């Protein structure tokens, strides 16, 4: 479930990045963040499948809920990392302008 949620997040962010004409929002960073994690969890899933066999595809409800919660938390953490990086690098100069005004 964590892998699925991260893959959906990666695909959505990549589509958003493709629609934009420039990368002022630094969406590429978020793309790489989610794709990197997705690839690593995919490998984890393959090893789990090798170990558990077909049981891998029928997890217990409690495990699925926990994995969903983890997946959503991971997506949230990725977004937090991205927004912090965006505000620090400040490519549009909005933060600097706001601070100068005050």
């Amino acid at each position, binding site marked *: 479930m964590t892998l699925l949620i991260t893959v959906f997040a990666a695909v959505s962010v990549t589509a958003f990045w493709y629609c934009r004409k420039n990368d002022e929002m630094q969406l590429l960073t978020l793309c*790489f963040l989610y*794709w990197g994690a997705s690839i690593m969890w995919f490998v984890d899933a393959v090893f789990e499948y090798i170990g558990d066999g077909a049981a891998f595809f029928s997890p217990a409800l409690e495990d699925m809920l926990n994995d969903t919660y983890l997946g959503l938390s991971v997506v949230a953490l990725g977004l937090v990392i991205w927004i912090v990086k965006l505000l620090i690098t400040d490519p549009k100069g909005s933060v600097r302008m706001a601070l100068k005004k005050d």
Partner: protein
Amino acid sequence: MACFLVPAAEAVVVKTVEKMVKKSEAEAVLSTDNNEEKEIKIPLSRKLNWLSHMLIGGVILLLFEHIWHGEVVPWFPFLTAMSSPDGTAAMLLEMSTAGVCMAVLVTVVWAVMCFAADSIVSRKNSKATAKGAEE
């Protein structure tokens, strides 16, 4: 257990190489006058930046997952698997199998991505040249 440590080590190496390549590219730009041909190619430092972002991003999110599952703790020895010799052996086995596979797969995906990006850029360049020749 600690599979993310292998891609983390690769990320450190890649980031170091990226900084060195970026420095040498900046020096090369300063020393040459005609940069027209170089500008239409994707610099190696930029490609390495993609790989380091993928590795660092994946490692951070995997570290979070390991903390979630109680495999990484904020006190010594930081990895719960290291509290017993059997656990340490299992951890090393996982690092040498899953960890290495993670690092290899991310690198392979990055290599394919670089190849695709290069072919897209060269396709656009050749289209622009053909259009210019027609005009």
